[in-house]
Structures are given as structure tokens and as C-alpha cells.
């Protein structure tokens, strides 16, 4: 048994998840973390699971063609240790090239890391949402200012706000 990364993408239709996961369960695979979403009419799945590489590959073989499928062995799992407090980043504005690159570069320059990010384009509106962790050493005011300047140049709006949870 190895830890495997399985990716699947193809034109959306009802039953893709059921087809893929049924094929996987037949090989004794246990799905671990996964994310699956619709990206402009293509259904995309990213799955990390533990299972036998050869069996998984051949079980998914009949689904190839309509779906683009990759199966890869992964190295040992690295526990993600949070580097600091969580923040939610939102960017929205008129679509143009370079928004994601510019904004994520600012986060990286502040020593931050992104744990989840999604972008959506609808008509002329571009929307980016991301979960960000910032180290305690990050200069928040400077990052805010840098993001504002980048946003101004790109003609988009940007907000970075704490995403702390309340224990109940």
C-alpha cells in the first residue's frame, strides 16, 4: 500500500464521482483528503488516498478517454504545521492577467502561506478567495499597504481579515 495522488478531470456529467470512487473502492482504497469541484464545465477531482498503485491504475483504466486521469505514488506524508494565525483573503474586480501572481507574491514576501485558494470568473468579474496563514513576525500593516498598492495597480479590491474560529 502506498499513498497515492489521483487526479481526474473531464467534461461534467452526472455520476463522475460515483464512477471514480466505485472503481477505487473495488481496489480496497480508502479515500483520505480530497477536493472536487466544477471548473468552467470541467469536473476536477484531486484525491490523496492509500491503496495499491497497480490495482488503482488498472481499475481507473476503463474511465480514461472521457476523463483525464493520473495516478502517482506520493512520498511520505508531511504534517502541515500552521505557521501562524489564519486569515481570509478576498480579491475581486475586472478580469486581467496577473492578479493571482501579484497578490500571492505579496503573501509569500510577508512569509505567509496559502492553504486553500479558489478563483472564479463570471462575465467580466474575477473573484479570488484564499485561506492564508501569516507568521507572528509578519508586519500586517505593511502587508495591508502592499496589497492595497498591488490592488490599485491591478484595478481590483482586496481585503485581508482574521479568520479565527470561536470555540463553543
Amino acid at each position, binding site marked *: 500500500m502506498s499513498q497515492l495522488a489521483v487526479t481526474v478531470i473531464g467534461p461534467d456529467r452526472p455520476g463522475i464521482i460515483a464512477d471514480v470512487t466505485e472503481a477505487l473502492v473495488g481496489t480496497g482504497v480508502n479515500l483520505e483528503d480530497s*477536493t472536487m469541484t466544477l471548473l468552467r464545465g470541467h469536473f476536477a477531482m484531486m484525491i490523496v488516498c492509500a491503496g495499491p498503485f497497480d490495482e488503482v491504475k488498472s481499475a481507473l483504466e476503463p474511465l480514461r478517454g472521457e476523463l483525464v486521469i493520473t495516478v502517482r505514488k506520493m512520498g511520505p506524508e508531511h504534517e502541515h504545521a500552521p505557521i501562524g494565525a489564519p486569515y481570509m483573503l478576498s480579491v475581486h474586480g475586472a478580469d486581467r492577467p496577473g492578479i493571482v501572481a501579484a497578490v500571492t507574491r505579496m503573501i509569500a514576501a510577508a512569509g505567509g502561506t496559502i492553504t*486553500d485558494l*479558489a478563483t472564479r470568473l463570471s462575465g467580466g468579474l474575477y473573484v479570488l478567495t484564499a485561506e492564508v*496563514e501569516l507568521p507572528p513576525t509578519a508586519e500586517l500593516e505593511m502587508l495591508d499597504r502592499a496589497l492595497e498598492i498591488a490592488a490599485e495597480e491591478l484595478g481590483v479590491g482586496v481585503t485581508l481579515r482574521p479568520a*479565527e*474560529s*470561536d*470555540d*463553543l
Partner: protein
Amino acid sequence: MITSWSPKLLDVEGQVLEVVRAPHPVLATEGATVDPLDPGMIQLAADLVATMRVSPGCVGLAAPQVGVAAQMFALDVTGHSKARTCHGVFVLCNAVVVEATRNEKAREGCMSVPDFTGDVKRATRVTVTGVLPGTTDELTISTDAFEARALQHEIDHCNGKLFLDRVAGAHAVYPRKVYQ
């Protein structure tokens, strides 16, 4: 009056109980209505307060979280930065939300689901009815902000629901971010 209530009125020593974690089946079981005069239930009320007190950051604890499928919870949001109206510490039996308005989304964590947090939409103003342990009169509590959220979270527990049952979307559950 609920604000003058104190665990001392229960007149029993609370024991610290073990908090159960999902996927324990009791957390998905609808709690039974309780008799607030039953000595066993009065002891449970004291135990819930005692367990809540020793759990860092804990503002509420429901009977299912200590393994008892019953309609009872302890609450105390005193001093919480997001609290506005605050009724201090109290235990409520057979609580029901009778009015809920002005929904707002916020991220919640739970001692019974220690590895995840989730975005949950809940009313910011609620009216709840219930009975204090050791009494028989139904009382009505109206509150807002964080106490309103906490009340709804605990009443959900009493009905076998976790915040995971109410998350605001497919991407609204997050690995808990604990850092040193």
C-alpha cells in the same frame, strides 16, 4: 431570574467528566427530555459546569458531549470579546429556540470535533425557552451576538447535531489551525 442563578444552588459537587469526540454515536443521538427535579439530572448539571470550567476556552457544554443523550447544557460566555448580552453562567434543561432572526456567518470550533472548524450561519438574535435544573418554571431568555450563537450550538448538541451538520458550503470545513 437566570442572571442570579449559580451552580451553588444545585447543592451538589460537580465531577469533571470526559468529553467525547466525534464520531461517537451519542453526538448524533437526539437527547431525551429531562426532568429538571431528578437528582441524577441535578448532578449532571453540576458535572457539566465543572467540566466546562476545567476546559480552556470552553463557553458551553451539552450533555451529549459527556456521553449522555439528554436535553441539557451549561453555558457561560462571560468575558468573551464577541459577547454583548450575557446572562452569566447557567444550565438549561429542555431548551427550545422559539424565535431566531438576523443570520450571520462565523467560524466555529467544538471540543467534540477538535480537528476541524467550520463556517456556520446562525441567528444573531434568539429567544429560547427552557427550565433551570432544580426548578419547574419555564423561563424565556432573549439574547444576541455570541451568546445567541453559543445557545444555538448547544441546543443543536441536545438534538444530536454538530456544527458539521450546518456548515455553509462544501468548502466551509477547515483543518483546525493551532499554532504555538
